Every structure is written in structure tokens, then in C-alpha cells.
């Protein structure tokens, strides 16, 4: 189901916390809304869910009628009773027949790895377990639109890596539209088909994730996505994360070396370009001494120039 947001504005205590002219969430795709804390991501999600007092319109397949939604808030909340009872209640409210409920619960619990927890009172789950039960409830609904707020918050280690792969697949299999919110660009990169970058209540970028990640449309987006942004004459250079290497190449900068170290198994040099802290891979070259200035470069495809920014 296609979700269209137009002229949305949320004002809280006299401050505009969210202002969107137009945003289209593609049908059947996983769209990740990415932004730092306080950017208005949760507010956007709540506005789509109809929980936020706001101006503007949110339409679903062109109509203002809200379809059945599945939602997983950042704070997992449950009613009294077991995990199974909580999932069953959500399905019951969605009008799923009792016969289908069991199958859906079993399937969602399998994906989230909580089959063994189903009979446990929801009040006695650890933070990570609760979050997985929270996601299982949203998944089991197979709603036309699913809203996930920081879906992987509180889940770490191997489970997180596993879920990063399994979650999008599971939701895609349901065929519904997924809008997820996260502050973590790496998580967004792994989950998203489409990406919406939300900074300070405004959309800075929206489109296929691969395009935005490889070619951020503005300096702020680039910076938030982890690109090094270096002020230049009348604009800003942005260099993709990990693209800088010591030595000559297509686009060259000079790096004031601070120290050499090893990151992710490869030797790197830490230093500053025009005062901005940067990191360049060393490759085969001998490590330069601190205080030395070396030439570093990146391929043209990994460098963007934003004129007029600063």
C-alpha cells in the first residue's frame, strides 16, 4: 500500500518539530526513516499512525482512510498475560480467525526466535526478548502498512546480525509496506529498500537507499551518513566513508597526520584535512610520522562537491 504524506506539519509548544511538503512511501517496500535523535522520526511515524495532532494529509492508496496498521513502538508494551496471549489479542483485534491466529503466532515467533518464550508472562521478558516479541506482534499482523520505531533497539550481538537479515525478508514476504525508523545509518543500509533522511524536522533526502547512500544530495545528509565533509573554496567536499587512501589519485587532499593505527584489520592513518578529523587507509605505504603532512586521495565516484554549503 502506497502512503502519501502532503504538507504535514506538527507543532509542539510553539515549535515546528516536523514539516514535510510531500513524501511518498512506495507500496510493498521497506522504507527506513533515518535521522539523529530529535529529528522528528517518531513524530512522523505517529502522524502516519494517526496518533499525532497535525496539519496536512496522510493518504493510503490515495484515500484518507487509515487501513489496518501494525506498529512496534520503541518501548515494547504488553498487556497482562503471556506473550502468546498478547500476540493473539493483536490478531483478534485485527479480525483474524482463531484458527489462523495460532499459525501466524508460530510463524512470527519462529522468525524472531521467541518460540520458547510464548508461554512466558510478557512482564517477565528481558529488554531484548521484549523487543523481539514486540516485532513478532507487528509481523504476525501482516498489515498493509507496518510501522517500526527503532526495531533493533535493545537487541545486540549475534541476534542483531541475524535479524538485520531476517526482518526485511520476513516483512517483504508479507507483501505490506514497512516504514521503519532508526538513527543508525548502518542499520538503515541493511534494512532499507528506500531511505528518507530526516534532519531537524525536514526531509533532506528520499529515494532508493543505494542512490542516497552512494550519492547523498546535500552536505548535511552526507555528513549524517558518515561522509567526511571538508570545507573548500565556496562549498564543501564530501568523501564517502572509507574511500580515502594515502597516495595520489583522482581527487587529492593533504592530511596532517596525527597517528597511525589499525582499524578493521587494515592499517590506517588518523589526521586532519583542513582541520576536519579524517581517516585514510594506508595500503602498502610505510606509516608516516605524526606531524608529517601526506597526500591522500579518493576516486572521483566517492567524492561529492556541494557548492554553496559550508
Amino acid at each position, binding site marked *: 500500500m502506497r502512503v502519501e504524506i502532503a504538507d504535514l506539519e506538527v507543532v509542539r509548544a510553539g515549535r515546528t518539530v516536523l514539516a514535510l511538503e510531500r513524501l511518498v512511501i512506495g507500496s510493498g517496500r521497506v522504507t527506513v526513516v533515518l535521522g539523529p535523535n530529535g529529528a522528528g522520526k517518531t513524530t512522523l511515524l505517529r502522524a502516519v499512525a494517526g496518533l499525532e495532532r497535525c496539519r496536512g494529509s496522510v493518504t493510503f492508496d490515495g484515500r484518507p482512510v487509515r487501513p489496518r496498521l501494525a506498529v512496534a513502538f520503541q518501548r515494547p508494551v504488553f498487556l497482562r*498475560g503471556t506473550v502468546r496471549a498478547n500476540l493473539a489479542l493483536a490478531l483478534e483485534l485485527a479480525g483474524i480467525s482463531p484458527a489462523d491466529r495460532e499459525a501466524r503466532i508460530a510463524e512470527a515467533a519462529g522468525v524472531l526466535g521467541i518460540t520458547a518464550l510464548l508461554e512466558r508472562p510478557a512482564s517477565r521478558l528481558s529488554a531484548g526478548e521484549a523487543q523481539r516479541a514486540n516485532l513478532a506482534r507487528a509481523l504476525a499482523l501482516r498489515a498493509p502498512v507496518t510501522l517500526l520505531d527503532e526495531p533493533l533497539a535493545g537487541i545486540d550481538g549475534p541476534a542483531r546480525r541475524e535479524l538485520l537479515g531476517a526482518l526485511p525478508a520476513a516483512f517483504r514476504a508479507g507483501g505490506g509496506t514497512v516504514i521503519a525508523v532508526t538513527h543508525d545509518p548502518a542499520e538503515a543500509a541493511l534494512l532499507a529498500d528506500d531511505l528518507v533522511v530526516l534532519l531537524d524536522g525536514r526531509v533532506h533526502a528520499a529515494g532508493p537507499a543505494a542512490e542516497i547512500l552512494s550519492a547523498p544530495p546535500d552536505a548535511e545528509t552526507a555528513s549524517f551518513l558518515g561522509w567526511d565533509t571538508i570545507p573548500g573554496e565556496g562549498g564543501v567536499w564530501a568523501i564517502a566513508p572509507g574511500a580515502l587512501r594515502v597516495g595520489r589519485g583522482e581527487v587529492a587532499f593533504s592530511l596532517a597526520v596525527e597517528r597511525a593505527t589499525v582499524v578493521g584489520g587494515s592499517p590506517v592513518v588518523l589526521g586532519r584535512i583542513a582541520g576536519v578529523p579524517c581517516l585514510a587507509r594506508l595500503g602498502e605505504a610505510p606509516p608516516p610520522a605524526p606531524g608529517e603532512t601526506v597526500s591522500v586521495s579518493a576516486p572521483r565516484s566517492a567524492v561529492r562537491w556541494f557548492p554553496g554549503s559550508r
Partner: protein
Amino acid sequence: MRLRTPAPLVAVLALALLSACGSGGSSRTIIVATTTSIQDSGLLDVLLPAFETQTGIRAKAIAVGSGAAIAMAARGDADAVFVHDPKAEAQAVAAGDLVDGVLVMTNDFLIVGPPDDPAQVRAARDAADAFRRIAVAGVPFVSRGDNSGTHAKELTLWTAVGVDPSTLSGRLESGQGMGATLTIASERRAYTLTDRATYTVLRATLALEPLFQGDAELVNPYHAYVVNPERHRGVRADLARAFVRFLVSPEAQRAIAAFGLERYGEPLFVPADPRAREEPGR
């Protein structure tokens, strides 16, 4: 999870509870505004059931002071009154609020006080003299202060002595019924004016003795009236008349004469009908 919505259940429960409380004002019911002295003595517990048995009319007796009872009548909030404040009664009759008055019974007021009688009230010539002695001695005196018949009588007596009661340092107002006022007087070793019935009923719990009684000035008449239906719509005058008639019927008069004899060794009220006095009992 049990998921029934409880609203209908709750509504049914509430209705059941309400109906179990009994029916509301039926048409065979009257409200009688009366005085605490009549209720506290227990006389109503004898008279009202007998009235209901005889006539099928339910009398709801609301015990307040005589002043409040007459005020209820003046608003049309009662059907009959049964009180003991001749002065206020006369005003209400003159104003047209009360009609068909009858004398039901009398008893008398007593001046009671601590047994050692510091004001020498025992030696008083008459009621006014007793009050004068209390005023002169400056001893504590507890007034009802509640516009009751007893309160009115007390004020009349102060006026007769020529004393402004508000200037008396020993006098305090309880603002409560006769029973509570007697208890306060007993605890504070004070004098007070009481009707005989309430005093007799409470005597065992009090450190108070009757110090002056028997003056004609201290007669305490109880009258019953019908609230004027021409002035107050909604008054059930026929039923109220039946109640007033019942109070002066031989049966009720004999019951009044007998009331208290067994328990206290003396009657608490004197019925208006002299024949009943000679032949008490029901």
C-alpha cells in the same frame, strides 16, 4: 485473556442494587417534620407503626428542631408537623402555612444542673427566678442554640428576667439536639433547660439533677398541624389530616400515656385527652 466488556453487567448490577433499596416515595406516604425530643425519646417508634397499621399510610418522620420543622412546612417540604414551640407555631398559623392544629400532649421543661447546685436554683421561687440566679452566679449554662422549641423557651425566660443572653459569659450554645446538649452540660458541670422526656431517657448517663420544675411557665405543649394545602401545592393534606387525627385518637393517646412507664417508672408525656391519663395502655 477474558475480554468481555463489563458495561452491561455493571448496569444490571447497579439497577439490581438500586431496586433492592426499596421503592421511592409512594403516594401513601407523608413527611412529618418533627422534633428531636420526640424522636430521641423513642415515642415515634411506637406511634408510627401503629399509624401505618391502622391507615396504611407511611409517615416519614424527619427529626429536626421545632424551628427547622416549621421552616420545612413554610417551604411546603412537609405534609404535617409535630412540634413544641407555641410562639413560632402561632406565627406560622398566622402566616397561613399551618392549619388544623391540635394539642397532642404536653410534658414539662426542667432546669437541670450539677447536684451541688452552685447557683442555688433549688431555692428559686419560679422559673424566672431560677434563670436570674443562674445569670447572677455566672455559672455555665448550655443552650441548644438551634431554634428548637426548647431554645425558644429558654430565650423567652431570659427575656422575662430582663437579661440579654448574649451578654452572659457562662452561657454557651451547643447547636445540637437535646441529647447532645444534656451530655455537654453534664460534662461541663453546667445548667441547662431540658424537656422531661429526653432527660428521663438519658438520666442514667448524666451527672445532672432536676433542680427546678413544676412552674406553669415550664409547661411544654406538643401540637400537630397540617401544612396548608392551599398555600403549598403537592401537600397531601388528606393523609396529613389522618395523621393529625390519629395522634388525638384514643388509641394513640393511650399509647402516649403508657410510653416510658415500664422502662423509666414514669410517663414521659402527658396526653391531651384526660381519659387516656387515667387508663394508660394500648
